[in-house]
């Protein structure tokens, strides 16, 4: 191997990897700030420094945290319920053919429907409070976790199950100690998609019908042309979404210690 090829193959250090990921967002921020200061930009492109100032102000007054807290409550409530149902029913359908047959047509039929359309119906039923929003988020999170758990359980190498039964393991143990860990990579993939959906649907619900939350903040800021406020809310959403995703990835690395080895694709 040539020296150049060797250098290329050497893994990046941790610091360099982080730096590489920061290049694009930083460049975009600087370009944005500069054009907002120098050039003529429309009023809805508020300079990042102004957004930062507003965010800071709202954090200090506690207002941003107020909205973030209600939003988080709704998103995580729906995420927990939808995720738990999705995983439990998905794994069950993955190991029991009749259960899969039972759910399959309903799931295929309702999966493509945007879950937000049922919000008005749920409001009529559950009221305009948190419950109806949590219900919509629950529905949105359910699908990706159900489908991924289903295929995770269906794809378990039959030899894993055979070898467990060979040693005398009963169905419960096979499920807990073989199916579950073997399907875990897929289950976690479903949970990751579900998390992003939970935030998206949360904002959509709050923009449509709410008196609190980050989505509500965005829509009222837009209406009153307070674009700095709108961006502050968007930044808050981005940050909690990012933090949640990183947390899941960290959990994934810990939980899949043995299974991730040698499976990092072309990145080596």
């Amino acid at each position, binding site marked *: 191997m040539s020296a150049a090829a060797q250098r290329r193959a050497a893994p990046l250090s941790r610091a360099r990897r982080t730096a590489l990921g920061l290049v694009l967002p930083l460049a975009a921020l600087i370009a944005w700030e500069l054009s907002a200061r120098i050039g003529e930009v429309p009023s809805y492109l508020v300079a990042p420094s102004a957004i930062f100032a507003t965010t800071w102000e709202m954090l200090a007054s506690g207002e941003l945290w107020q909205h973030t807290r209600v939003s988080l409550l709704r998103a995580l409530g729906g995420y927990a319920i939808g995720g738990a149902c999705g995983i439990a029913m998905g794994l069950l359908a993955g190991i029991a053919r009749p259960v899969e047959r039972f759910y399959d047509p309903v799931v295929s039929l309702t999966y493509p429907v945007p879950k937000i359309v049922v919000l008005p119906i749920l409001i009529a039923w559950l009221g305009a409070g948190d419950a109806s929003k949590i219900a919509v988020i629950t529905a949105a999170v359910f699908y990706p976790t159900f489908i991924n758990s289903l295929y995770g359980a269906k794809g378990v190498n039959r030899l894993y199950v*055979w*070898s467990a039964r*060979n*040693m005398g393991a009963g169905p419960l143990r096979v499920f807990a100690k073989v199916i579950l*860990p073997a399907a875990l990579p897929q289950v976690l993939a479903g949970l990751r998609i579900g998390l992003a959906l939970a935030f998206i649907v949360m904002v959509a619900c709050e923009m449509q019908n709410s008196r609190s939350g980050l989505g509500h903040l965005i829509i009222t800021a837009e209406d009153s042309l307070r674009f700095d406020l709108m961006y502050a809310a968007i930044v808050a959403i981005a940050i909690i979404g990012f933090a949640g995703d990183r947390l899941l990835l960290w959990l994934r690395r810990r939980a899949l*210690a043995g*299974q991730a*080895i040698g499976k990092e694709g072309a990145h080596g």
Partner: protein
Amino acid sequence: MALLEVRELDKVFRRGARAVQAIDRFSLSVEEGEFVAIVGPSGCGKSTFLHILGGFEPHDGGTMLLNGAPVRGPGPDRGMLFQEFALYPWRSVIGNVAWGLEVQGKPKAERIAAAERYLKLVGLSAFRDAYPAELSGGMKQRVALARVLAFEPRILLMDEPFGALDAQTRELMQEELNAIWQETRNTVLFVTHDIDEAIYLADRVVVFTARPGRIKDEIRIGLERPRRADVRKSAEYMAYRNRVWDSLRAEVLKAREEFK
């Protein structure tokens, strides 16, 4: 009555209109404590036979009696060593070896101690905390061997257990298995492609025909026990070797003809 009685066993794999007869009216009886080696061309149904015997795969015709009762499903009396190892990627090496004992409800200290003993036997103590994905093919195979030995089944079903090993390790493992058998007198069904291994280890060598698998030949190996490694140099041994090889050769050629 023999420990294992297989009579007129049939197995057909079907998918849609396609049907593959893997095993055709296969009969075999195995005595308690007997070491039976099974040789045959690739694809003749050896693994399938062990899977049926293990209770994993159903069969289509014939009977299979274990201790006089039909085989209904898998059980810890028959320890299966799969050709593909089937180690759990989410468990460390020691966790894999201790798994059978965990299922049996042995206390933790006891199963770790037993697992460590068997890991030492296969020469992998240094890798106790590694994951299977970090092992070579031959190392995985030895972990699988330790795992099946650790839960001490009465009958061992071994599907090419040394197939992935280098020649030297393979010989060491053969001697190790020979010593274990000498001590435990387990009943063993041992599938292999290695004629020398079959003769050195077994009381009887069963030759499968090309697919569909049937019994072509059964050769009783009268070499004195306990067998030492240098038995392989004796004239008696060479005579058995020629005998098995002649029998197998015709079937291997037939199987190759079919693949063309």
